[in-house]
């Protein structure tokens, strides 16, 4: 296979676990370039672990994660952070920070002791704020924001890294439905307009079917199915992966598959 046809982020036979428990066993997976990928599966199936391994937040015991064709743990973490941003699950900021303070920290991988704040940093922060729709809120204290706004501030921090790949671990947790839709629409817009490759862990299969181009269904640390929503979100797969008896219909508005539990 030539270098060119390979996807930028892929896992090759990775095994990940904690002492006494193997979570992922020799799993291989490609994150398709330029698409929105949703990773779904029942609780404790290893989806967060997979995402964290892809983002080099936890070490792999076997196999390797490749970013741009090279093992990710062999690359300098700062260099990785300029291409790949990760938003951990329910991140917490210390009190006394404004939105701008938070978003500016996204520039950490672009700075060093010798190279402090620059014009490029300021521009990237402005761009990130505007992409996340937060221009008017940048001087607000984080703890005065609504949940949806706060999550967008974290996304803006990830965008300030100027990444080409964005990984998100359950970005919609603790948000009400309108805010979930708003956030996923924002993520898809970032993919369409800014060309960002996105991979995210999602709980809700219907939302995944609605907003993702590519769905990866995990169970017991293994990939059971992957492909476009129409191929993955079927009654058969739902039964196999979630043990959920259901009917899958075509959503009359968006034409995506929609799960109706029996």
């Amino acid at each position, binding site marked *: 296979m030539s270098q060119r046809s390979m996807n930028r982020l892929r896992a090759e036979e990775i095994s990940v676990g904690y002492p006494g428990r193997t979570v992922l066993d020799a799993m291989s997976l490609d994150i398709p370039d330029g698409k929105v990928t949703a990773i779904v599966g029942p609780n404790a199936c290893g989806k967060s672990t997979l995402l964290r391994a892809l983002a080099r937040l936890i070490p792999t015991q076997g196999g390797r994660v490749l970013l741009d064709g090279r093992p990710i743990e062999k690359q300098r973490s700062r260099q990785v952070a300029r291409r790949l941003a990760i938003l951990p699950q329910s991140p917490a900021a210390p009190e006394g920070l404004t939105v701008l303070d938070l978003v500016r920290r996204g520039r*950490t991988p672009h700075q060093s002791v010798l190279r402090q704040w620059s014009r490029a940093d300021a521009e990237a922060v402005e761009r990130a704020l505007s992409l996340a729709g937060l221009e008017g809120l940048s001087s607000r204290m984080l703890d005065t924001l609504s949940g949806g706004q706060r999550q967008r501030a974290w996304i803006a921090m990830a965008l300030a890294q100027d990444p080409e790949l964005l990984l998100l671990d359950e970005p919609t947790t603790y948000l009400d439905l309108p805010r979930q839709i708003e956030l996923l629409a924002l993520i898809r817009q970032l993919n369409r307009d800014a060309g960002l490759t996105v991979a995210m862990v999602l709980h809700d299969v219907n939302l995944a079917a609605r907003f993702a181009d590519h769905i990866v269904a995990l169970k017991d640390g293994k990939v059971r199915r992957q492909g476009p929503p129409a191929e993955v979100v079927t009654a058969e797969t739902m039964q196999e992966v979630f043990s959920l008896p259901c009917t899958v219909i075509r959503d009359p508005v968006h034409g995506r598959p929609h799960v109706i539990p029996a």
Partner: protein
Amino acid sequence: MRVDSAGRAPVRADRLLDDVSRDHARQARRARAGRSRRMALLASCAALVLLSALALRLGLRPVGWADLAQALIAYEPTDPEQIVIRELRLPRLVGALLAGAGLGIAGALMQGMTRNPLADPGLLGINAGAAAGVIGGTFLFGMGAPSQQIWLALGGGALGAAAVFALGGGAQASPARLLLAGAALSAFFLAMVRGLLLMSRQSLETYRFWVLGGFDNVTAHTLGALWPFFAAGALAALAAAALIDALALGEDAARGLGVRVGGARLLAGLAIVLLASSTVAMAGPIAFVGLIVPHMARAAMRNDMLWLVPCAGVFGAGLMTLAELAGRSPLFGGAMQAGVMSALIGGPALIWLARAKEGRMS
């Protein structure tokens, strides 16, 4: 404009206009906030210079501005007034400035790294280690001279902190484990010190003198020996500032930003140890400054290490100098220890800050 049956569009337009004007106000406020931090820092620097000049002039023997300027620019070693300034007050002032700045910065790093607003460099076992070093050296090797004490305290403090880091789990140390290890080792060191004090009268004399500390015995020699440690500590603190800011977002977020978590903690720890051990070596254990100053700095600078580090340095230097100056005033008999005075000034300031914050939150 499309208006739906519920007439929602006009409302939205109003809201939009409202939002736009609010945006402008916010942007202006943000620009002001950025400027105001810089202005606050500059103003504090100016106040510190003024305070320093005052500290040089005032004392049992007040000195005029002309003599002060003369002593600093063109020193005349025969003029008694200038001798007082150069030989007594200048080393004392520089000592207070360095100690205050060192403790302030070390405290800011401590509180940022452990995410604990009550953390203080003393909790890392540095003060107890330094005391153990001084008393152990005196007892075992009869090293009681002030010039030897500096190195005993510096070595003891650094060793104490290293032991705390090792016990706390090294590069994987969690803040909670560090604080526990610090508390345990401090108790151990102090028990050792007490044991030695009971056994040896000479150690007791040395200890009594050392533990009161202060800046009366700071000489040009002391400063010459210790300033490289302060400088290295300040540089390490500035280098660690951005990393601590990233770590404050959680370990996963920090790793995602490309920060090596263990390395960042080690660098910050190195800065804390350098600054706090040099301070305790120079002036004995000074409590409270490292605890209070970061709170004052945060009130002025928000929770942003790159601003907090320089600000805590300036505020700490100011508080220490003020305490030193007040301690020498006739009001306190002219000889109150700076460490006692800094607690007397800082304690009420901390209570006031805590109350002001509570008021804001409710």
